[in-house]
């Protein structure tokens, strides 16, 4: 089967020279023009307003999983380069959140939007933008905690170490401990609340929480159990020391 017409072509000499010149000039003009018009990375202002979930589903034509991932790849190109020393610093985070929300709604099982939110867009140096992204992650976590806990766990770490906002980190860690119930969720994620409480000097609460976890029998690994038991004893000692210490 021939896709291109089978033929014995006439020799090149049969083509008029003017036509050859025209073809060469047109090709050269096209190449030169496109070289001059090379687009850079799309800028922050190029990001359009997010579509509705219904519109995105309509466009996906029955392939929401593919569309959601392609849309994420497209979205992350905005404001990624250009004159930016820090990527995404000029991006309108309200619009961004609108896009992330629409894409996540198009394929709720996709981890891409929340992964990008927590690992890429939450790296912004502007605390207000970071908090906006955290709010989005927290809202979306509530609808499927067992699948979406990693993004919230990372947000808790960033809230603690970047924003130095321990109450916010505690809020996220508590949500994971309370709502993510799947057995596959690692213990470090569930224990985050204990350690944040400890960092907040809420030793009594941390002690109660850790004791509760050990008593509930969730921790089956002997090494982990021994480590946490030691941690609990340390907490108890510190709590007792504080009680004995004279009030200032």
């Amino acid at each position: 089967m021939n896709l291109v017409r089978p033929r014995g072509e006439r020799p090149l000499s049969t083509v008029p020279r003017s036509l050859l010149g025209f073809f060469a000039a047109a090709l050269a003009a096209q190449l030169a023009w496109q070289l001059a018009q090379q687009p850079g990375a799309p800028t922050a202002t190029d990001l359009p307003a997010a579509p509705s979930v219904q519109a995105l589903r309509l466009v996906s034509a029955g392939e929401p999983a593919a569309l959601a991932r392609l849309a994420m790849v497209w979205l992350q190109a905005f404001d990624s380069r250009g004159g930016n020393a820090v990527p995404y610093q000029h991006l309108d985070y309200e619009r961004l959140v609108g896009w992330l929300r629409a894409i996540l709604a198009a394929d709720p099982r996709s981890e891409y939007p929340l992964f990008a939110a927590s690992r890429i867009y939450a790296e912004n140096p502007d605390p207000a933008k970071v908090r906006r992204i955290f709010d989005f992650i927290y809202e979306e976590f509530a609808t499927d905690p067992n699948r979406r806990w990693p993004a919230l766990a990372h947000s808790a770490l960033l809230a603690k170490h970047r924003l130095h906002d321990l109450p916010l980190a505690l809020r996220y860690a508590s949500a994971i401990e309370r709502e993510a119930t799947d057995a596959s969720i690692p213990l470090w994620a569930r224990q985050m609340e204990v350690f944040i409480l400890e960092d907040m000097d809420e030793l009594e609460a941390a002690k109660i929480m850790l004791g509760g976890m050990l008593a509930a029998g969730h921790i089956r690994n002997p090494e982990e159990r021994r480590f946490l038991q030691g941690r609990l004893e340390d907490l108890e000692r510190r709590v007792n020391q504080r009680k004995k210490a004279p009030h200032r």
Partner: protein
Amino acid sequence: MTRPRRHPFIIIARYTLVEALRSGLPWLAAAFIVGVLGLSGFLSRVAITEAAALQATAAGALLRACAVFLVAAHVVASVAREANDKGLELVLALPVSRAAYYIGKLAGFGFSGAMLATVFAVPLLIWANPAELAAWWLSLAAETALVAAAALFFASAMPQSLAALAAVAGLYVLGRSMSAIQAIAGGPQAADSLPADAGRWLVDALALLLPRLDAATRSDWLLYGSPPAGEFGRMLFGLLLYFLLLAAAGLFDFSRRNL
């Protein structure tokens, strides 16, 4: 008194246009307009806000896609029919040069596309003001002319209509998405490795050989006004250059063809 003798390419262009008008193209265009207006009307009924904007943009985007599809399908079908009927051999047996024949066909199909663009622009007057719509219409006319040139080139070079249509569709889709592909390939998440670099170079090289169709006939012009004159002029000039390149490539291929 004898009538002044017209250049053969004008006669061929005229008959190509007459063929388009007498084929099913006008009826299909009317059916597409009714369908698009119905669909955009339905969408506006379920929208909770910006109903008119949704209707205008949906209608604009759909009509653009329909115009491109109709022109490409019409050109490919017309070339295939002429090849089957041996019409090409008949015309070239007359004192008509190959270049005159090809240019005449191209002009006829280009005018058909421009007429289609005009017919498709009229319903958009419901939502857009004439000044903004004029830019959209002009851009669609240029875009359909370019698609007609691509379809004529592929339909002449390929014996199978399906292959020609697929080639036009591939060119069109790449032309509309290449900027996004380039941006993705050069984004900060792209790996710095030899295969990744090679991929980026390949994408950039491919972009040089494609028209920038993503910048043409945008439905947001219907809402927010046409782009600045400089930007609009550059877009039209880019389409014109690519149209000329396709015409030159088609003429070159047609001149070497052994009939």
